Structures are given as C-alpha cells and as structure tokens.
C-alpha cells in the first residue's frame, strides 16, 4: 500500500555542512517499509522545484514511529528542505520502489555506499541484523566530512571507510579499500553478496569487482523521476528485459539484469 500524506517533522539535524537529516512521524503507524525503498517529497515554497524529489528512506525507527531522510543539498529543492523546522509538515508519497533483497539468517552481506548513497544502507543494515544476517559496511566519501552517521552504522555491523583525500580510513575509492584487497580475510572465501548505492561510476566499479570475483551484486539506481509510481515511464533503465521503470521495478537491480558495459 502506498500513501500520500503530510508527515510531521520531529527532528531537523545538520550532520555535516551541506546535509540535512529529517526525522518524520505520523499520528498513525508508519507502513511496513523495505530497506531501499524511497519517498517522493513535495517541496513547498520553492518556485523552481515543480516536481517531487525522490529521497531514499535512510532509517526507520520502529520504536518511535519515525522515518529518517538523509539529504545532500545540491540544488534549490534540497536546500529548501534544509530550511524546515521541527513541527512543520512535509507531504510525502511513499513507500516507493522494490528495496534491497531480504536477508537470510547467517548470510554475509557487504553494504557498499558512496557519498549520500550511504543513506538507504543504514536501514538495510538494521533489517539485515534483525533477521540474523551479518552486515558489514564499506562507505566511501570525498573526505571525512562526507561520511555521516558512522555511529549509527556501527550499531548494526563493522564499518570500513575510504576517503578520496585520505582524511579518514583508506585513501581512494571504495574499490581501493583494504577490505577488498588481496590479504583481506573478509573476501577470501567469496562467501558474501554486495548491495551498493552511490554515484553511478562508483557503482559500476563495484559491479565490475563483483562480476570479476563472481560475487552476487545489486545496485540502487538514481534515475531522474517524475511520478515515482511506474506511470510516466520517464525513469527507465535499459535492462535485459528492455526499458523498465527504476521507480517501480527498481531502484534496486541485480547487476545481471542491467546492460552496463563493465
């Protein structure tokens, strides 16, 4: 079931320069949400923001009936969202898309995130841990300022980080992480799968690594969207089944379904 309703903002935090973390709640219980699903937000008071803005569901705080969104401020719409206050309401269409593969007990899953693409991985980590799977996070950013919510991630699994400027963790991209290196115990037995979200070049590099090492891999795409409901066919990605809507059949796809040249 999908909903379009005004949710109440109960928290506005600024975890780092250029980001906002919104915590939303509702009088009624929030619907069941698969990690990796997203919302479409109506941005009020920004004349140049006509369409809704798709944002991943960062975390669901079941106990407090909250849904968190982690947003990078890149343009008019997202900057307007950063000006919201506690007590304001936000019109949200949700939950949309398919979400990441459900975990199974004892399963090893590597959650690879780049930039603000780390957002949906927090809730995925929570859901994996809840079902007895074993999540590990590999998070990459330009610098330590772009690596957010690390303490939250640590609640659900071990966290490895990379930064392009070397300010935290291994220097380079996520694919340069020692976690994926030759001497890594984690990857030795190839007994894990990868779920990945981030900028496309980064996801392609991760997909390439997965393909070469025969590791199952899914990626979460961020194509431009209008309706978010599978109705307008604006957000399509080429797949082995032809053009499909990222908002409905995705945003999460197994890399074998895609036609990426990797």
């Amino acid at each position, binding site marked *: *079931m*999908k*909903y*379009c309703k005004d949710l109440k903002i109960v928290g506005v935090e600024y975890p780092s320069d250029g980001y906002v973390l919104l915590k939303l709640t509702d009088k009624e219980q929030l619907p069941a949400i698969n990690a990796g699903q997203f919302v479409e937000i*109506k941005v009020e008071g920004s*004349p*140049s*923001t*006509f*369409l*809704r803005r798709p944002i991943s569901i960062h975390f669901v705080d079941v106990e407090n009936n909250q849904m968190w969104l982690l947003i990078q401020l890149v343009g008019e719409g997202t900057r307007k969202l950063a000006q919201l206050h506690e007590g304001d309401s936000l019109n949200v*269409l949700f939950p949309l898309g398919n979400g990441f593969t459900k975990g199974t007990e004892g399963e090893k899953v590597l959650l690879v995130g780049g930039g603000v693409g780390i957002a949906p991985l927090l809730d995925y980590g929570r859901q994996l841990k809840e079902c007895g799977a074993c999540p590990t996070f590999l998070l990459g950013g330009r610098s330590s300022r772009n690596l957010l919510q690390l303490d939250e991630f640590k609640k659900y699994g071990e966290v490895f980080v990379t930064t392009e400027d070397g300010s935290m963790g291994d220097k380079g991209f996520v694919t340069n992480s020692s976690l994926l290196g030759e001497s890594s115990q984690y990857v030795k037995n190839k007994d894990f799968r990868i779920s990945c979200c981030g900028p496309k070049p980064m996801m392609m590099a991760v997909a390439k690594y997965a393909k070469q090492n025969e590791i199952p891999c899914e990626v979460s795409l961020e*194509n*431009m969207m*209008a*309706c*978010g*409901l*599978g*109705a*307008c*066919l*604006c*957000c*399509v*990605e*080429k797949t082995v089944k*032809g*053009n499909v809507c990222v908002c*409905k059949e995705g945003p999460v796809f197994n890399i074998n379904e895609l036609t990426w040249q990797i």
Partner: protein
Amino acid sequence: MADIKVNIAGLQMQNPVMTASGTFGYGIEFADLVDLSKIGGIIMKGTTLQPREGNDYPRMAETASGMLNCVGLQNKGVDYFCSHIYPQVKDIKTNMIVNVSGNSPETYAECAARINELDAIPAIELNISCPNVKQGGMAFGVTCEGASQVVRAVREVYKKTLIVKLSPNVTSIADIARAVEDSGADAVSLINTLMGMSIDIERRKSRLSIGTGGLSGPAVKPVAVRCVWQVAKAVGIPVIGLGGIMTAEDAIEFIMAGASAIEIGTANFIDPAISVKVADGINQWLDRHGCSSLADIRGVI
C-alpha cells in the same frame, strides 16, 4: 450541489475530469492513492499496434513550471494490452479509455479495430499529436490532410466514441479541428505537449536523449486555453481541454473557453489525488457562484 455530469458524444461521465494519457499509467498505479471510481474518465497510456521500446534515457527534464518529456510511446503493443492489461482494468468503475497511436492510417485503424472489440472500453482517444516519435504521431496531426486520413481510416472500423487529440504545434489548430470533425471525429481533445528543448550548459548537451521533447504543466496553460477557445468556436463537436491544469479554477478557465470536459496530466505527478480534488472543486465553485450546471459557464468567453 451543481450537476456536473457530462455526455461527450455518448460517453457518459459523472464529472468532467479525466486523467491525461501517459501521466496516469493504466490507472491501477494510482489505485492506492485516489478513488478511481470518482474520476470522470481515465485515458490510459498510448498504445500502438506493435510493441515500442520508446526513446533512450534521459526522457525528462524539469523546466520552469513544467517539464519536458520524450518518452516516445513506450508500450507493449495492442495484443499485450488486450490479453494482459484489459483484464486488470475492465472492472474499474469509470470510463477506461485507450489512447491509440500509429505510424500510418492502417496501423492506427488496425489498433483501433482491436480496441473496438473490448466491451469495457467506451471510447478511444486518437493521438495524432505526439512530438516524440520520428514517424507518425505528430506528423499526421500537423496537416489537415494527414489528420483527415487517419481519422477517416479509424472511423470506418471504430464504432464507439472517437476522440481525436490535437497538437498545438501547428499554425492553425482550428483548421485541423475542422478537418478532423469533417472526417468523423466525435470529439477533440487538446492540447498535447508543445515541442520544446532544454540544454545543460555545463555538459553542452540537450537534457533529453533525442534533443527535443514535449512541454507540459502550468507553463503551457495559457497556450492551451487559447487553443481550446479557438477550436470551440470553430467546431460543433465537444472539445476536451487540457494543458497545465492544477486546480479547479484552472479547469473552469478551460470550460469558460468552451471545453465540455477537461483532462489532467502532469499535475498527477505532484498530487496523485488531484483529479478528484478538481472535480469536487468545480462543483463547489459552481455552487458558490449560483450555477446549476456546467452549461451556465461553458463557452461564455
């Protein structure tokens, strides 16, 4: 409560609000979010005789008060529609209308003939105005001869309500409307999108894969109202108005310009329940202004 029922050449509608093709899927995508039975009619996605993959991504760009799209009529073809989609939509309690496209009078007619067999489809909307496919689409809608050819071919095989959707990308939309009326159309709907373009100056590339696209949303409304006004004066058949409608007040503008009914497109992306809100809003507006039916305001300009 004012009477807002309308009858478009035999097509009975409980209110004058329909959803525009390509913006409301097959209706089922919106079933969680709006009571479909309260919409006057649902015009489903563009359907062609053969399956079409559509254009490459990127297919949309946001613009000032609107958007460009170049979806390019992606659909699985009329056979798939009849076998897989029709069973899912035939019991929806409103007018389920198919938007038909083609690349020759014959393909339009063959597609329409297939739809004619479906009991629960009371009407088709013939799209001779899609700016996003190389062959066909708008190519027919921009000349009186082309438009007549397609409409005549379809009229021969299609027995129910035939709505023809017109392109604004022409010198005289009234001339095209007259040609379409003379060829047997029961009603016209307008406007389809206005051809436009948007350039990403950093990448020095068009924002759309095929360069150009169709502009929709509030940005096109004044053009659409003008087109409806001109066409309503030129033809005797009912006119269905659309282009940029976001509110009941917008809809009333179209009705005053001469529209018998209206369609809502892009606004569905912003508010999935907008169609029912506009229908209710029209009713309230009429009540507030002491009007007993739409006839009191239709074509008063």
